[in-house]
């Protein structure tokens, strides 16, 4: 793809795959039960982009400042399998940023009731490990990762506990204390246009990016990326689009 061609198209409100500027690729869908050994797992597909998220539960000690709360740990690994741009080795900046955006979307929306993840105050809590793996990077990993994460969290069943030890493989009927489902929508600015769901070619020419995690009528987390600045007006417009797209993405989760 030629970068100039992409830019020319966007100037004329058009995109290389024939989409409108504010249109997600199709399909947007979720498949659950990716790994039987996870307490919950899901694959999110947006167009050709595919991300797997899996949840493992483990036991731990609470942080001293929150003795009656469990917690989450989000990790993402950009598998070299998913793109010729990714390399093996310890997580780089992009992987760490991705994990932190997802972490804050869950944490700040209070989607999980951390208090209910406490088993014994000051001593024993549930640790929720959220691991995110892109399988095919065709753009917009952030939204796909967020979608896979909430879908996987929704699937989780607690494993059996016996004398404060986990019996993996034996699941109870209890679900995670998930009180709501935050949705993340990433908006990008290319030239003076705002787009949703950039594909990998469009990501090469992005000027600025804003990821917005929303739930109900609240904004719970934001992350700006890219070099160029955004005006108040643009931020305002981006928030409106995020709320509009929330409904659409939420449908995929049911």
């Amino acid at each position, binding site marked *: *793809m*030629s*970068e*100039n*061609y992409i830019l*020319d*198209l966007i100037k*004329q409100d*058009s995109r*290389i795959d*024939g989409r409108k500027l504010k249109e997600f690729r199709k399909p947007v869908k979720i498949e659950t039960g990716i790994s039987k050994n996870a307490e919950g797992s899901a694959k999110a597909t947006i167009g050709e982009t595919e991300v797997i998220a899996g949840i493992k539960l483990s036991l731990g000690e609470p942080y001293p400042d929150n003795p009656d709360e469990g917690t989450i740990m989000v990790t993402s690994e950009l598998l070299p399998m998913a793109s010729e741009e990714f390399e093996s080795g310890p997580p780089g900046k992009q992987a760490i940023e991705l994990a932190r955006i997802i972490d804050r979307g869950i944490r700040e929306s209070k989607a999980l009731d951390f208090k209910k993840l406490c088993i014994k105050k000051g001593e024993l809590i549930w640790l929720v490990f959220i691991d995110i793996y892109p399988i095919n990077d065709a753009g917009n990993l952030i939204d796909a990762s967020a979608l896979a994460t909430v879908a996987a969290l929704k699937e989780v069943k607690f494993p059996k506990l016996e004398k404060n030890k986990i019996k993996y493989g034996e699941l109870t009927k209890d679900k995670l204390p998930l009180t709501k489902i935050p949705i993340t929508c990433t908006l990008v600015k290319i030239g003076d246009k705002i787009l949703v769901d950039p594909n990998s070619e469009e990501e090469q020419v992005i000027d600025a990016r804003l990821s917005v995690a929303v739930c109900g009528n609240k904004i719970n987390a934001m992350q700006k990326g890219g070099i160029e600045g955004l005006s108040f007006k643009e931020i305002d417009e981006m928030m409106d689009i995020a709320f509009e797209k929330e409904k659409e993405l939420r449908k995929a989760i049911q």
Partner: protein
Amino acid sequence: MGEIKVKDKEIVVPGQELATGMDFLPGGAAFREGEKIIASQLGLISVRGKVIRLIPLTGKYVPKVGDIIIGRIIDMNFNGWVVDIGCSYDAVLSIRSVQEYVERDDDLTKYYSFNDIVVTKITKITRSKLIDLTTKGPGLMKLVGGNIIEVTPSKVPRVIGKQGSMIDMIKKMTNCRITVGQNGRVWIQGDIKNTLIATKAIRKIERESHTPGLTDKIKELLEKETKK
């Protein structure tokens, strides 16, 4: 007497035995191993008399001297330009091999700059895969504007069609300028709608390259889409 173990147009996998006997000859991606002829790649069989030819259906473009290809300028050095030609190796377009007269200490970006798209011909390939290009010759030039899409190199003949019939039809019905490189890169220039239609048609050829009545199907698609 040998025995042939596959049919014409059969899909075979690497390692598959295609024939036994010295009276058969391997062609394309087939090779001889003692009495046997074996497939070395995933591909389509073409049997012509005693020659069993294997046409690879996948894989990166394998450069050949004389091929006219579409490249992208990715770097410059003392000798000229480094060109990405969509194979496993970068190629070199030396300052002596371009139509223009270039002084040694000239700013090379005056002629070809980063990300420029060029139609070039392969003039030389060494054992260690150093590839030389030229832009001297008819039709060889820089392409300005337009868009590039990539198709599997083995499907290029289908995109072009017999004596160029397929590509001529697409050009005519979409009013686009189109250049097809042997390396599977296709350059399309036209208005937005028509570029998308031409892209759609080429993608369909790539997907359904060996199905019957392909020309009619593409014609139908073009008629339907251009009328919208």
